[in-house]
């Protein structure tokens, strides 16, 4: 493998810092795979990282980021996962900010970026709609120009963290006359604007508040909230979505889950050859994805659409490993972690039973969101194999 000088030193400084500064309360929530981590805890952690200049790891130095190379960024994200620290604030830091850097006006940069960097504003994403999921371009929520304002009507679906967000960026229909990719405009808005209503969508796993449907009724926002040209939001969205390509494989998180299974199996002294065989297979498969991710990030030539396979296989193996974890915990994994009495009654030596089922059910979403497995296969077929 390529040598990156001093990368080991960098890695251990990150590991050390996380270990010493991650609040216990937060670490516990992450270990328990909680989806609804409170806003103030998220902010606290972001600011702890920001003290080192690490709050926005992907940002270039000119915007106050650490200016890391890909390898440093990669190592940082791995240490975050292995250290049971929360995922970084993906919507503001990871998605909107680079988009604003590329497509935003000077005023927008001044306005938006510092507030993300300081975790003053939490962002959410308004892309999908009830009738537009995988087929995003068929979105219908309208933004109509009225003087210096857009008037928004309709609703957005699957909005993660919509209930704790201050701002939303999203795609809105400003013209329906042409082909469906045309007439989409990229806008930002205040979540407390009159006419915005956030309804939680409960998921079958009972993960708590995580995703929402956001309704708009005559919501008025200034034209200056538009990013890029009117009707031309589709290409901005494509850029923004391409930022998700790496990391969605969740390799680091899966590595951490594997550690947990082995730790549990040692305590439980499982002696089930069938289970062992499944676990070994999963471990080897994860290794294949891990090495492929590495190869596509740092290898001979940069990966393009091929990177879709990381999301495809990464989430598949992620769920396989969570299933193994669920099975390793045994029958106490069947309890409903939303019920406090049930959690209190659990045998002391089996804390995993308090969260594994929920995680196991909840993470099935990863094969669905951000381009479902089927969409990833379509992308590979078309963009890589040319069929």
């Amino acid at each position, binding site marked *: 493998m390529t040598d990156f000088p001093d990368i080991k030193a960098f890695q251990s400084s990150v590991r050390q810092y996380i270990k010493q500064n991650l609040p216990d309360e937060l670490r516990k929530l992450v270990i328990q795979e909680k989806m609804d981590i409170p806003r103030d805890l998220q902010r606290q952690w972001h600011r702890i990282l920001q003290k080192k200049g690490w709050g926005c790891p992907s940002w270039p130095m000119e915007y106050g980021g650490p200016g890391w190379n890909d390898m440093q960024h990669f190592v940082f994200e791995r240490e975050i996962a292995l250290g049971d620290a929360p995922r970084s604030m993906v919507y503001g830091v990871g998605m909107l900010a680079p988009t604003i850097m590329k497509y935003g006006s000077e005023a927008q940069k001044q306005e938006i970026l510092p507030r993300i960097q300081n975790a003053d504003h939490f962002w959410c994403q308004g892309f*999908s709609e009830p*009738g537009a*999921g*995988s*087929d995003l371009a*068929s979105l219908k929520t309208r933004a109509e120009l009225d003087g210096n304002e857009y008037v928004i009507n309709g609703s957005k*679906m*699957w909005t993660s963290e919509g209930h704790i967000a201050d701002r939303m960026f999203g795609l809105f229909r400003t013209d329906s006359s042409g082909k469906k990719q045309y007439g989409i405009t990229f806008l930002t808005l205040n979540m407390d604007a009159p006419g915005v209503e956030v309804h939680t*969508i*409960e*998921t*079958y*796993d*009972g993960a708590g508040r995580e995703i929402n449907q956001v309704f708009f009724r005559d919501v008025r926002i200034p034209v200056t909230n538009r990013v890029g040209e009117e009707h031309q939001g589709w290409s901005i969205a494509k850029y923004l979505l391409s930022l998700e390509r790496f990391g969605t494989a969740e390799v680091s998180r899966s590595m951490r889950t594997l550690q947990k299974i082995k730790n549990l199996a040692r305590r439980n002294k499982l002696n*089930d050859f*069938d*289970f062992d065989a499944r676990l070994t297979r999963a471990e080897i498969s994860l290794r294949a994805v891990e090495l492929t991710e590495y190869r596509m990030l740092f290898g001979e030539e940069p990966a393009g659409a091929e990177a879709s396979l990381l999301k495809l296989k990464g989430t598949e193996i992620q*769920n396989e490993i969570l*299933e193994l974890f*669920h*099975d390793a915990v*045994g*029958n*106490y*994994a*069947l*309890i*409903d*972690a939303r*019920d406090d*009495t*049930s959690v209190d*009654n659990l045998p002391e030596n089996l804390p995993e039973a308090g969260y594994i*089922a*929920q995680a196991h*059910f909840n993470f*099935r*979403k990863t*094969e*669905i*969101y951000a381009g*479902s*497995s*089927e969409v990833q*296969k379509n992308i590979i077929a078309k963009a890589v194999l040319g069929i």
Partner: protein
Amino acid sequence: MKIQSRILILSEEQKMIRESALRLLDEEFPFSVRQKLSKSETGFDAEHWKLFAEMGWLGINLPETLGGLGGSLVDASLIYQQMGRTLVRSPYLTTLTGLKALTHFTNGSGHTDTLKQVVSGNRMLTCGLSETENPGHPAQTRLEENKDQWRLNGCKRLVPWAGQSDDIIISAIQKGEHYLLIVNANSPGVRKLPYRMYDGSRTADIEFSNVEITENCILGAISKADIQKLLDIETAMMCMEASACMWAIQDQTLEFMKTREQFGQPLSTLQALQHRIVDVYVKCQLAQSMAEDAILAAESICNNSDSDFRNTKRISAAKAFIGEAGRFVGKEGIQLHGGIGMTDDMPIGHYFKRLTTFDRLNGDASWHRRRFSG
């Protein structure tokens, strides 16, 4: 898709049992009611239980002299199958197991009154035979004689609906021999640690500290093989339930695919998705065959006092197959629904949770594979 038996050849009467069960459950137990009950105190509705009693379902396997209908295990399985299809949650199965334990080994003598009250829905009974993940693993709970008094000490794990039951049938060990007891759940020294399960059903760990047991409550000595038989019969019933759950997922997913449009056409027109729903359909068919075979094996077990290892293997093969196939079908069902499949308002995820529970209870697929090949 209508469930048709083909290994089971049903009488007209049995077909009627099946159809009327489906009609009643569909009517009385729509998904909205299930959702409401999930977070209720007991997890099921006393009115429904009364209805089950009125229909004769609780006493379906009991002789008429004990207030039952004198029906076969297959009859009972047809009702339970429809409970799987409609995702009805209740202590039905554990009640049947408890009654079977009570009558099969003692013919209910001395507990006729309890029996009748259970069958009429006025008293709740459950049965806890396992203490570990391995079904039928020898009991550690001890029955001890001390100054002419019998005392019970130990713990039974995850006894279904034990928190909601008046009586609990358990096995305990005394001088190397196993005994079957019926214990009043409210006796001094009985401590319940209740749990709500993620499928909304209820269960509890039961700790016994020096619980006084009257002679009358010791039903009799029981061999490990006979405990295993009770579990096998219960497992076969579960297979019928689970294979019906699978059909429900197939139906709902197929229906969803036919109506949901993407890129301007119904999902059902996309060949890659067609082949996947076909895989789901095929698993449902195979699982149904296994379930029917398991219930026939269990009926043989009921009818013969001799233990037949072949019957045991038939049931283990079914449990292992349906355990895996059920989880596969559940996952595919959600995936083919997309984001909608993740929502609590859609039944699909709840069927998946039930099928995941199924795979774990009474020994998971891996355990039953080992038993099958052993």
